[in-house]
């Protein structure tokens, strides 16, 4: 099926005992894109990915990767996908370069190992046993192992967790280059910035359900209802969101981001802004900034799920 999407999940349900990890989830990943599955820990991201990778059999619904059933057509599919696990995946005594060479030997046309090691900064630790690699080095080796077989689709689970900021940018550049060279990248993350900067398409998942889907721009654009971000100099008094909502009246919603900021969605007019200013004066808080329509993915997530994404 040359035209099948890279990933097609339809009505997926996965339970562990009584706990529902994935609850009737449907999503599509188009080829040659970077698609982010975004959600807090425990949202069902890893379970969904592991079902795409053939580790788990869907309890209900269907999963297709490159048009193939990851469980029943496993042998056909596996050479065509690359998988980066969230952690582990190597013998404790194996040297980094030795492990990468081993995975390369299982493929017919592996990437040039020197080049790949150089791109991921792995030359410096090539002779180091896996157990003595830093978390970031293990992470990069994991990514190298996912890429070395020249797959059509790579699944990367939290690719920059525990990686320093400079290496994070390097990994972002690499993932962008993969897309340019025709590889489809499916990544899970709980870093908003990662999804916003990198992804062509974002699926936001919470409690095993798809809560929103679109390009980062589509998701952050407010539509007819504007978003106002209020930042103050001193922490809000207790019960602030409810009291502000009462002042603003119907058609608005208020959610607190942290001690010093709140998001208000409602009609973006002078009346709303005046009411917010008056409320601040009444409660003895000084607005530091009052931004209109400046919503990022973090805000979108907060408004959709009522909680913050950060772990």
């Amino acid at each position, binding site marked *: 099926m040359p035209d099948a999407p890279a990933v097609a999940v339809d009505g997926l349900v996965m339970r562990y005992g009584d706990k529902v990890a994935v609850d009737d989830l449907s999503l599509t990943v188009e080829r040659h894109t970077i698609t982010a599955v975004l959600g807090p820990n425990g949202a069902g991201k890893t379970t969904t990915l592991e079902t795409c*990778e*053939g*580790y788990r059999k869907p309890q209900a619904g269907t999963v297709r990767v490159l048009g193939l059933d990851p469980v029943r057509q496993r*042998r056909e599919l*596996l*050479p*065509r*996908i690359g*998988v980066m*696990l969230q*952690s*582990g*995946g*190597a*013998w*404790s*005594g*194996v040297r980094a370069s*030795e492990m990468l060479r*081993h*995975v390369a*030997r*299982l*493929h*017919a*046309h592996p*990437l040039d190992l020197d*080049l790949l090691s150089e791109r991921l900064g792995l030359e410096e630790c090539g002779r180091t046993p896996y157990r003595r690699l830093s978390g970031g080095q293990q992470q990069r080796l994991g990514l190298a*192992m996912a*890429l070395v*077989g*020249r*797959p*059509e689709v790579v699944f990367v689970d939290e690719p920059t967790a525990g990686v320093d900021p400079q290496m994070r940018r390097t990994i972002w550049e690499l993932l962008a*280059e*993969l897309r*340019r*060279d*025709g*590889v489809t990248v499916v990544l899970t993350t709980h870093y908003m910035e990662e999804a916003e900067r990198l992804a062509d398409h974002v699926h936001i998942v919470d409690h095993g359900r798809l809560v929103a889907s679109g390009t980062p721009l589509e998701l952050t654009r407010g539509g007819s209802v504007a978003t106002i971000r209020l930042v103050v100099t001193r922490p809000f008094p207790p019960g602030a969101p409810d009291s502000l909502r009462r002042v603003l009246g119907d058609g608005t919603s208020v959610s607190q981001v942290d001690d010093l900021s709140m998001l208000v969605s409602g009609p973006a007019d002078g009346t709303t802004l005046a009411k917010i200013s008056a409320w601040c004066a009444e409660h003895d808080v000084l607005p530091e900034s009052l931004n209109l329509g400046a919503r990022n993915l973090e805000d979108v997530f907060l408004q959709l799920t009522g909680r913050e994404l950060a772990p």
Partner: protein
Amino acid sequence: MTSSQTRPAGTFSPRPGAAPFGRMVLAQAGMEARLMLRNGEQLLLAVVVPVVVLVAAVTGSDRVDLDLDHPAVDVFTPGVLALAVMSTSFTALAIATGFERRYGVIKRLGTSPLPRSGLLAGKVLALLLVQLLQLVVISAVALGLGWSPEPGVAGVVGVLLIIAAGTAAFASLGLLVAGALRAEATLAAANLIYLLLMACGAVVLPATAYGGFEGLVQWLPSGALGEGMRDALIDGTIAWPAIAVLLIWTVLGAALSARTFKWE
């Protein structure tokens, strides 16, 4: 190749494909054998312990009245070779596989092009490679102690068959332990069972030395392996009953571990 011509080829342009099955198995076997030989504790178990047992048994038997029909070194060498097979196929394999599960190696390889049959074949090939090395070292020490085997053609065939059957039996039992228990528990259980079988399982000491238990110990995989090795190297015969016993253990171990083995 048409697709790579229409699209400008970049560094990461997809070109997926599994290596040929034989090459994957060889790569896996080479890797596992290297890791096994690099691990100090495993090397101790694989070579040092059997050599020490051999030297101690041969020199010690002069002082203890064991009533052997043959020179001590001719009786003990086959037993120590059997012990070496057991240490690698059972203990070393179980411990290595237990930690592979723990560290996610088996999970990682599960999404590589290497199928499970290839993983298993690689493991067995690695065991045979390590055992060949053990055989060479132990035989060299034994020859130095005056070992003079005359197995003949039947004996050589008998040794190869009993090693194959012993490897199959102990490997399936090793995987049973590794697939069901946690890594630490596997480490403890695999060593404990090895020590028990070494002491009471008719590996090094002939079954006749166990008095009333002679019949019973020959049904143990360790006893069958030891007796089979002695039949081949002392009497130059193929020990079909011992091979049959080992095959029964293989079927038992394989059937049970197929049901209980957890890959993660």
